[in-house]
């Protein structure tokens, strides 16, 4: 028996729940050398910015226990090159593409949305809110419900109704549920979490910070519990909102945790650095775990861990009813 792995990101159907995490698969070409990108539920691009960006100085990377820090600084060629070269490459191949955007002002996000609104091949738009708001003393959009909401409202008003707008949230906030709620109220069709929490490592040989940028984003297995907690809290508060769970997913079991917490799509980031085939392996392992537990559909597992203690899993109830003679 195969498990029905189809899932819905808002009203958009994906063949399976696995996507790449923004910034961890560039714009797809490099991974395409390893496997057919159609086997992904969707590909999420790196965050696209208005102007080309050279990013932060090196070293940009430090390995940490069960994780790594990065301070790339959204290096990329900018929206023009993306529309000219990268998006058409994905669109021509019919690869479901979640385009991630990043900006320093509300106007910049709006302009990016405007440029992408008529571009063919945008399956969904993910708004990376973990950028510093240059008009508000560098405070990160994702840390302020109102700033995040302003960006989402503006982007939502510009994008076509059939392209879901996904707000990507940061975990290092006092109350992630309130930021999530602000984004949904502003029109977000789905939420994705988590972006990298901020961390730091010090090189004990050089007696200096390991990263040129001093601090960087933590990713990898070290942050899985943080991601599970965020997805759990937001799903509990906003059960109808589709969630992309991201953070430290290395195996099907990790993905399954996020699904049980409430995610209907799972993003894979750092695992790709360890294993370019990670998305395919994780999808297969997730399917195996579902099958072994008697699930016929992925959808039945989404948020299942929220049921009260002692109650039987829904999918098993349905099963036994059907099999009653």
């Amino acid at each position, binding site marked *: 028996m195969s498990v029905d792995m189809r899932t819905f990101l808002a009203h958009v159907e994906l063949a399976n729940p696995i996507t790449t995490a923004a*910034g*961890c*698969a*560039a714009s797809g070409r*490099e*991974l395409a*050398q*390893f496997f057919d990108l159609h086997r992904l539920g969707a590909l999420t691009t*790196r965050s696209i910015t208005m*102007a*080309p*960006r*050279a*990013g*932060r*100085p*090196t*070293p*940009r*990377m430090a*390995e940490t*226990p*069960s*994780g*790594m820090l*990065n301070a*790339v600084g959204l*290096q*990329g*060629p*900018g929206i023009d090159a993306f529309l000219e070269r990268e998006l058409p490459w994905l669109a021509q191949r019919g690869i479901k593409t979640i385009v991630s955007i990043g900006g320093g002002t509300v106007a910049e996000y709006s302009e990016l949305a405007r440029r992408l609104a008529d571009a063919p091949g945008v399956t969904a738009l993910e708004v990376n809110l973990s950028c510093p708001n240059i008009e508000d003393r560098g405070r990160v959009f994702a840390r302020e419900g109102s700033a995040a909401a302003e960006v989402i409202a503006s982007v939502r008003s510009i994008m076509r109704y059939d392209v879901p707008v996904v707000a990507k949230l940061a975990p290092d906030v006092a109350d992630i549920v309130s930021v999530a709620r602000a984004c949904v109220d502003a029109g977000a069709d789905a939420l994705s979490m988590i972006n990298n929490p901020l961390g730091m490592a010090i090189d004990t040989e050089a007696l200096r910070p390991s990263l*040129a940028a001093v601090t960087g984003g933590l990713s*990898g*297995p070290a942050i899985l519990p943080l991601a599970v907690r965020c997805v759990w809290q937001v799903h509990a508060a906003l059960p109808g909102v589709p969630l992309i769970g991201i953070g430290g997913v*290395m195996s099907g079991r990790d993905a399954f945790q996020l699904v049980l917490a409430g995610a209907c799509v799972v993003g894979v980031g*750092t*695992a*790709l*650095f*360890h*294993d*370019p*085939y990670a998305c395919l392996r994780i999808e297969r392992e997730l399917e195996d775990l579902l099958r072994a537990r008697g699930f016929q559909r992925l959808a039945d597992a989404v948020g299942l861990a929220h049921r009260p203690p002692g109650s039987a899993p829904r999918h098993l109830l349905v099963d036994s009813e059907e099999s009653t003679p």
Partner: protein
Amino acid sequence: MQVTGTVLTTRRVDAYHALTVVAPGIAERYRPGHFVSVAVGGGQTSMVTRRALSIHDVKSDYGGTVELVFTARGPGTAWLAERRARDTLDLVGPLGRPFPLPRDPVHCVLVGAEYGSALLFPLADALLARGCRVDFVLGGTGAERVFGAMRARRIAETTTLTTEDGSLGLRGKVTDALPSVIADTRADAVYACAPMETLRAVTAVSMEFDIPVQVAVEESMACGIGVCMTCVLPVIGDDGVTRMVRACAEGPVFRGERVRFEDVGTIPFDALGAPGGGARHVS
């Protein structure tokens, strides 16, 4: 591609560890300058990033083997140093852009410092196969850190060795010996793999002699396949524009005079997309 390789032999070569691994698919596709990335620490490891290692040698034995030469530096390479025959290793490769080879049988000087020498040997073989003349300049801090002197002597026209402590060959650095080697051999081209500072000096010497130089650089890498953007350095493109390019995907081999060595570790103000800089001047 990804291959589960089996360790065939492990050796100590002077100060270095050498692992020969059965990895047919990688050996087949290999060209001089390519590298592999190795998963370290085993199944439940807390080390999430792979280690980039140059390929020192490929042989057709056992369907194809690759040999890696490395220093045990941090926890990942220390783990690799403990591997024994019959252990398996998860390799991805061959990665990166290999050395371009000259069309004509020209005179080439190959410059290597420390383990950087290791990847020059298959390059030397390829150059010799094209009828090139090959001369080596190999160096290290001390005698036990000069890799491959014997083999160099066997295959090259001349081999010049340098050590900083004077324990072998000339006292000093490879770049101290390089000008006279270029002059004596009437070299047409230089190939080099060494720490960034040495590559900078090798490039400066080659430019003085007005001969092309190809350098294999080393930058800290998280993915090795071109997706994470952690391994960048400033390189001048054909159009004269400096870009922060990936050492793993656009490199590790670059034309020396294109690399802005003095700006490695910074974002030069005139780089494309530099804060408040380059981007605005490019239409």
